[in-house]
């Protein structure tokens, strides 16, 4: 069974991208081929239709849903280096803003699915943007059973709802947890801390006592000189 493998990986994925473009462009899908990986962005309305076709059609045959996760794009491209106040939250250095801002409401959340085709040895990624005012997207559990827990996780951590999911409960956080901890506006240290109170002889919840602190600021640099293909920006000085 040791056939020459992976030899045509790039060609396979390139032609996959072309096939996807041909089949789904009229549905409003956008196909990208970057770093050897294929991504398709699907409008929420036709998610189930596209997913079912990706699973069943001979050109695709993505039998396995490898992973599904939520993403919160609200701070995408925002650097801590350029914040105004130099206190707990960032490092004001009078550097001009990178100009990037968080996305609009309808592109704040996304659900990203990773698919694997075992018969054709291909991978691809599907992304569906979710409106943050009404974060609901159709569940793909009817297409891939493994989506059940992944969607529960995305609901738990991001508060994205999945229509048609049979059992949408929290999965990773504590019983009775409030909030969706992986959202970018949820602080890293959380809201409550827990300890055993010997007088009340039970566990008590209190507001957190630790302060948020940034140890290494997030900086965004456009200097990628170690990349072969990054000949566009040769910024000699590190700002």
């Amino acid at each position, binding site marked *: *069974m*040791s056939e020459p*493998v*992976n030899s045509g*990986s790039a060609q396979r994925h390139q032609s996959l991208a072309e096939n996807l473009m041909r089949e789904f462009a009229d549905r409003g899908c956008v196909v990208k081929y*970057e*770093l*050897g*990986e294929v*991504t398709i962005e699907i409008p929420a309305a036709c998610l189930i239709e596209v997913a079912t076709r990706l699973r069943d059609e001979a050109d695709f045959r993505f*039998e*396995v*849903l*490898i*992973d599904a*996760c939520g*993403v*919160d794009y609200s*701070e*995408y*491209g925002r*650097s801590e280096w350029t914040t105004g106040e130099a206190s707990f939250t960032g490092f004001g250095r009078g550097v001009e803003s990178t100009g*990037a801002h968080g996305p609009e409401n309808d592109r704040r959340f996304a659900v*990203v699915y*990773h698919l*694997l085709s*075992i018969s054709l*040895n291909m*991978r691809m*990624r599907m992304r569906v943007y979710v409106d943050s005012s009404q974060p609901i997207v159709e569940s793909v559990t009817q297409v*891939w*059973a*493994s989506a*059940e*827990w*992944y969607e529960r996780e995305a609901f738990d951590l991001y508060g994205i709802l999945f229509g048609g999911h049979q059992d949408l409960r*929290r*999965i*990773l*956080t*504590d019983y009775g947890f409030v909030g969706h*901890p*992986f959202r970018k506006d949820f602080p*890293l240290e959380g809201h409550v801390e827990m300890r055993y109170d010997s007088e009340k002889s039970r566990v008590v919840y209190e507001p957190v006592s630790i302060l948020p602190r940034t*140890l*290494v600021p*997030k*900086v*965004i*640099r*456009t*200097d*990628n*000189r*170690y*990349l*072969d*293909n*990054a000949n566009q920006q040769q910024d000699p000085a*590190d700002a």
Partner: protein
Amino acid sequence: MPEIRNYTLNFGPQHPAAHGVLRLVLEMDGEVIERADPHIGLLHRGTEKLAESKPYNHSIPYMDRFDYVSMMCNEHGYVMAIEKLLGVQVPERALYIRTMYDEITRLLNHLMWLGTHALDVGAMTMFLYTFREREDLLDCYEAVSGARMHAAYYRVGGVYRDLPDEMPKHENNKFRSDAEIAKKNEVRQGSLLDFIEDFTQRFPALVDEYETLLTDNRIWKQRTVGIGVVSPERAYQLGFSGAMLRGSGIAWDLRKKQPYAAYREMDFDIPIGHNGDCYDRYLVRVEEMRQSNRIIKQCVDWLRKNPGPVIVSDHKIAPPNRVDMKEGMEGLIHHFKLFTEGYCTPPGEVYSAVEAPKGEFGCYIISDGANKPYRLKVRAPGFAHLSAMNEMVNGHMLADVVAVIGTMDIVFGEVDR
């Protein structure tokens, strides 16, 4: 007629056979399971969120703590994702070292799995046998990284340092006789590679020993044959990977099908099962241990013949050596920048997967061009496997739940993240 009522049984999270902190709520009809509802998250540490607030390199040690019995494979998945994002070419020697340590890790994991799985099902002896060999392999971890478990040895662009020329030895102490210590040190006279080679020569006979105890053992077969059967179609649907998929008869192994590191050069076979039950998965994993041993041997031979750098010389992502740092201005600046700020990756998104001992371990990284990942999602094989718990134990007896937990090779560090 007496009235028969179903009842609900709480299994774990403090049960020794729950392999950590699994809480199962079982709806029982007598001794037969009607529904199993795993409650997970008791070990949820929010690692992925933590990683969003740290430079890339700071999260490598967190990777060890996902699946804490196959540490280096997790690191491998993570550093490979960053390397793909950066477009870094890893030196060949580092690739072979990684391949060798991935396989050592696989042995570590499978030995742990075999020992605990057999212990759960009632074969105490296996546990003692497998932990004897784990000791030697953990010594290999220690020799190369200083830590027996949480190594943080793989770095972006290679590995932290080259293999040591000398294997650490046991020191004389009052708990063991000098003769015993001398015997232990016999195999440790040479380099690390000598030690590993010696291990690969001893190991097949030891696997035979395990098989003598279990493979034809009547009790073992009664407990595992026909338990937790998964058909290939369901295995696809349930998102299985690794030995769980191969046990159902699907020849899928990322080391062969989407080779990474030096697996392309390695000569090894993929064992597959027929029936998709616990016994087949046992056979698959035991055979995988033999195959891993073959791979380690090939890596040792190659590493003996081919010295060379083990990490990239680009000091934007790998630190300069100490002498350069102390004597040269360039080195000093690189060192300072690297350790205060880290490196920025180009904006984009990558998913990279390795064949971890438990299945496909994948890292999905979204970068917005910063020195920290914008989003890190870890695809843990155990998460998908555990989600199939209800389906696998349905209709089985309570005692079989333990066998199914064992066969899934669950570790809660990765399930709960």
